[in-house]
């Protein structure tokens, strides 16, 4: 700037004037929080120069292949894990409601997940009828058993996947042990069936806090509570009130509420306005699927269910895709992303990033795509492409 002595004065003056103008117009804010910035960044200059943590020790993980194409997807994922050299050992349980003879007992599966703290799970198909008259499905039983109260689906536009909207990055958090899924239905008089929707203050506050904690941890700016309190004034009203209470503890995160019908419309017309959404059980189920459809369908969205002690990673939109069994066409992306999330959760970021990078590269290149993304490749070809792209 000041190399030319003749231009020195002029440029300085111009700069000064510009600077003044900017400040005066309020477009440039002076660094009033300078000390705070320094505070945050100073320690990085003397960090430890050792290689990234790549432990030789092995971690155990429970594996539930699930129904439909689940076993094929799991096979694909374990192949990728093997090729990447991931230090994870799987404890496999066949767990199914439609194939009851072969299913492992719920207690064993729950005990294994409790012990390991992590689980990868395919989707369990739920029959439309109940053989024993019991209303709870196996999925619900597992969630209740482990108290997996929070379901998180991270809906994110993937590179190379064509869809109506781009740059979607929304997290949908769903309460999943109460609400409409209470499995309390009865016929009071002939022809009149009552289904009880249960909302409790404790669980509503817990899921709201989960959503805000998730937002804090992941540097998200806004939490939207989705409800239908205008109709269900007491039930959803309690949910909404609990969210508002918890929101007071998070002054740096914006809190909004939206009615579920409006939310679904906004989601398809202007999905980028959503950051973190928190909602009761059934709305979550619907919005999860809707949002998954926006970014490429059930084959590419990963999800996870949390209790305080353990996590079950499973695809975000729950479809077994049973018509494709044995056809070698299912998309393993969702399952692979579940795998990377699981690796990050147990501090194996090195491997998580490696697989994540490979998935992104293959999708971005767009040469190998399964049918659901408009390609002609098989599950196997896709898996091999991922393995070839591991770096």
């Amino acid at each position, binding site marked *: 700037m000041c190399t030319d002595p003749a231009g020195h004065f002029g440029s300085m003056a111009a700069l000064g004037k510009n600077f003044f103008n900017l400040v005066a117009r309020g477009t440039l804010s002076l660094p009033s929080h300078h000390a705070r910035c320094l505070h945050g960044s100073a320690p990085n200059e003397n960090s430890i120069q050792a290689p990234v943590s790549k*432990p030789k020790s092995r971690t155990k993980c429970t594996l539930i292949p699930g129904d439909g194409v689940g076993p094929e997807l799991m096979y694909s994922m374990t192949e990728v894990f093997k090729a990447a050299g991931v230090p994870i050992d799987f404890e496999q349980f066949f767990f199914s409601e439609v194939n009851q003879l072969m299913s492992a007992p719920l207690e064993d599966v729950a005990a294994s997940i409790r012990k390991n703290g992590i689980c990868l799970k395919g989707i369990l198909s739920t029959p439309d009828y109940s053989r024993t008259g019991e209303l709870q499905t196996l999925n619900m039983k597992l969630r209740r058993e482990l108290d997996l109260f929070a379901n998180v689906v991270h809906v994110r536009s993937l590179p190379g996947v064509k869809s109506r909207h781009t740059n979607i990055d929304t997290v949908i958090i769903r309460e999943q042990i109460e609400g409409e899924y209470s499995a309390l239905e009865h016929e009071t008089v002939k022809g009149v069936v009552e289904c009880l929707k249960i909302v409790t203050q404790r669980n509503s506050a817990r899921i709201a806090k989960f959503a805000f904690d998730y937002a*804090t941890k992941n540097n998200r700016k806004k939490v939207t509570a989705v409800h239908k309190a205008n109709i269900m004034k007491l039930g959803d009203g309690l949910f909404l009130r609990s969210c508002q209470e918890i929101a007071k503890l*998070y002054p740096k995160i914006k809190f909004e509420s939206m009615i579920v019908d409006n939310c679904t419309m906004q989601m398809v017309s202007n999905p980028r306005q959503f950051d973190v959404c928190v909602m009761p059980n059934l709305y979550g189920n619907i919005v999860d699927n809707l949002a998954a459809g926006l970014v490429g369908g059930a084959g590419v969205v990963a999800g996870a269910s949390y209790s305080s002690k353990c996590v079950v990673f499973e695809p975000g939109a729950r479809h077994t895709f049973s018509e494709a069994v044995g056809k070698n066409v299912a998309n393993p992306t969702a399952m692979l992303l579940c795998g990377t999330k699981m690796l990050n*959760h147990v501090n194996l970021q090195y491997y998580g990033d490696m697989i994540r990078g490979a998935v992104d590269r293959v999708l971005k290149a767009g040469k190998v795509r399964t049918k659901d993304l408009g390609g002609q490749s098989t599950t196997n070809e896709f898996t091999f492409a991922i393995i070839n792209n591991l770096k």
Partner: protein
Amino acid sequence: MASRLSSRILPLLRSTNAGQLTLSRTAASASVSEFDMQHKNPFAKKVIAIPKAEYGGRHSVTMLPGGGIGPELMNYVREVFRYAGVPVDFEECPIDPQSDGNEDLEYAITSIRRNGVGLKGNIETRSLSRGILSRNVALRNELDLFVNVIRCKSFPGVKSRYQDIDIMLIRQNTEGEYAMLEHESVPGVVESMKIVTAENSERVIRYAFEYAQKHGRKKVTTIHKANIMKLSDGLFLETSKRVAKHFPDIEHDSMIIDNCCMQLVSNPHQFDVMVMTNLYGTIVSNVLCGLIGGAGLISGRNYGDHYAVFEPGTRNTGTAIAGKNIANPVSMLNAAVDMLEHLGHQNHANIILQAIDKTINEDHIHTPDLGGQATSIDVVQSVVKHIQELTKDKNWSLN
């Protein structure tokens, strides 16, 4: 006693909380706004529990780097946690030491409320003007962290005057001389109130005895100055005698603070668990830390009914050595280990503890405050190296 005290002060509190100017005559000498700002409720607070931030076995923990060497020490903790695979996510809340406002501090307190647990360096309060609270004290009062626990245990590898010291120091943390109630009644006469309540005394003394019982300690010593402050310290002493009757298998005695300091430097091995009021606690903890190797080794824990905050045992910011790569990271690492034990990650805690032990006692990698030549990074690198060795053929979370 407490009820009598509270009946005297509570109405006064209510009126200030409501922002009304109808103060009683005693407090009217100090201007209302200052009193209002300075005043902290010295009584036990009833706080409603908020669900803890633990999801899928991972905890969120509030990190307050504080001033001086705090930020660099926190960075070492992060680094060590990364190598030990600790399932803890930090939410960092920096507090600007220059500002007179308390927004940063309020946010930090809210954050600890949400997470339940905090790891903290020493926060500076630069401003000496009367309206500004000491932020460390404000934090403890707001969260009602009524007990401060410091374990002073000798490191065999550190040269010090005494070996094999293992004293548990338990200190009342929210009232006493730190009640921050000072005023100038007439020009040239300043009164500072020391508040002792039966309720808070009993809580902290009960904690001491329960701790002793749980950890197989033999003796609890109450430190006081009841010969001079017959009412306030007398209450503390009376309470401890009363509580001691509920624990017949634990020996109880008492000692006057001045004698205690002398005994500490001449014959520290006679002490087992010590319980005391606020100001004596800060003195005794510094004496003890000095005896076994300085401020850089020992960690302290602050507990309330719902929250826990962990910090280095002696509350010094170390501004003079900040950024010179010579601060001893061990005290903050020990505080982090305490935190892991509190959260229930015993295996991770053990691994880090063993690594620290090997670094200090076997490899003798000491920073200048322990008479060594090593830098902070040397110490942390050695700890990391030991962690990697310890976890070579087993999982982090398995012991």
